[in-house]
């Protein structure tokens, strides 16, 4: 009788909770925020969006019941442009009012990093400057991830 909740419903619930003043912890689904966040491994803590800033990672409802968790890459008045760290092309556009929540903490590999963490700020500064070679950096990241899985798989087989 326990059901899996479809993502759009889950995020709709999160939107409601955020509007009520809660913070919410969401497991990341998808690969578009690589290399910062990994699908089903990492989570984020979101707070209600009271004025998002440039380079914040936000949860935004870009169309009715269609949410993305991406980084703010441009702000012009009420217009917000979003892009996933792991995306090579394509941005999403929405209004400030469509931003449902702002990420305050990244729970990465079980470690809790606040957005003000020095490592996180360094990553943001470096990653955004490397947009032209992002394709190759992501390729390297994917290879490293696969190698890691292969090695851990072999270790498990041996033990």
């Amino acid at each position, binding site marked *: 009788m326990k*059901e899996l909740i479809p993502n759009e*419903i889950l995020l709709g619930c999160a939107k409601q*909770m955020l509007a009520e003043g809660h913070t919410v912890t969401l497991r990341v689904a998808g690969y578009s925020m690589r290399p910062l966040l990994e699908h089903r491994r990492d989570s984020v803590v979101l707070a209600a969006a009271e004025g998002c800033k440039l380079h914040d990672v936000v949860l935004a409802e870009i169309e009715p019941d269609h949410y993305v968790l991406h980084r703010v890459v441009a702000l012009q008045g009420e217009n917000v442009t979003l892009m996933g760290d792991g995306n090579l092309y394509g941005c999403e556009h929405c209004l400030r009012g469509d931003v449902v929540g702002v990420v305050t903490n990244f729970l990465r590999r079980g470690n809790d990093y606040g957005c003000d963490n020095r490592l996180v700020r360094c990553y943001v500064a470096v990653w955004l400057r490397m947009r032209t070679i992002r394709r190759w950096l992501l390729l390297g990241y994917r290879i490293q991830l696969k190698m890691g899985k292969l090695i851990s798989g072999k270790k498990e087989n041996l033990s």
Partner: protein
Amino acid sequence: MKTKNGFELRKVGDQRIIVAKGIENIDFGKIIAMNASSAYLWQQVEGKDFTPQMLADLLVEKYDVDPNLALEDSLALAESWQKAGIVEG
């Protein structure tokens, strides 16, 4: 067994979920989703002592289902509630 205090059933859209009351952070990795029948049973027994047989009787009364099947479902449901830590006893 008895439902634990501190949890509430909420309806968001068509979805029903059990969340901990009054906590600041809601961890969506830990919320419990319920379908219509389990949500109905939760509402009926919330704050009371109950047995799987009582859940089965409620199901038969509400949905006119076979009593044996209702008991089977109720036992499974009670077990899943216990595993989720939302009931005690």
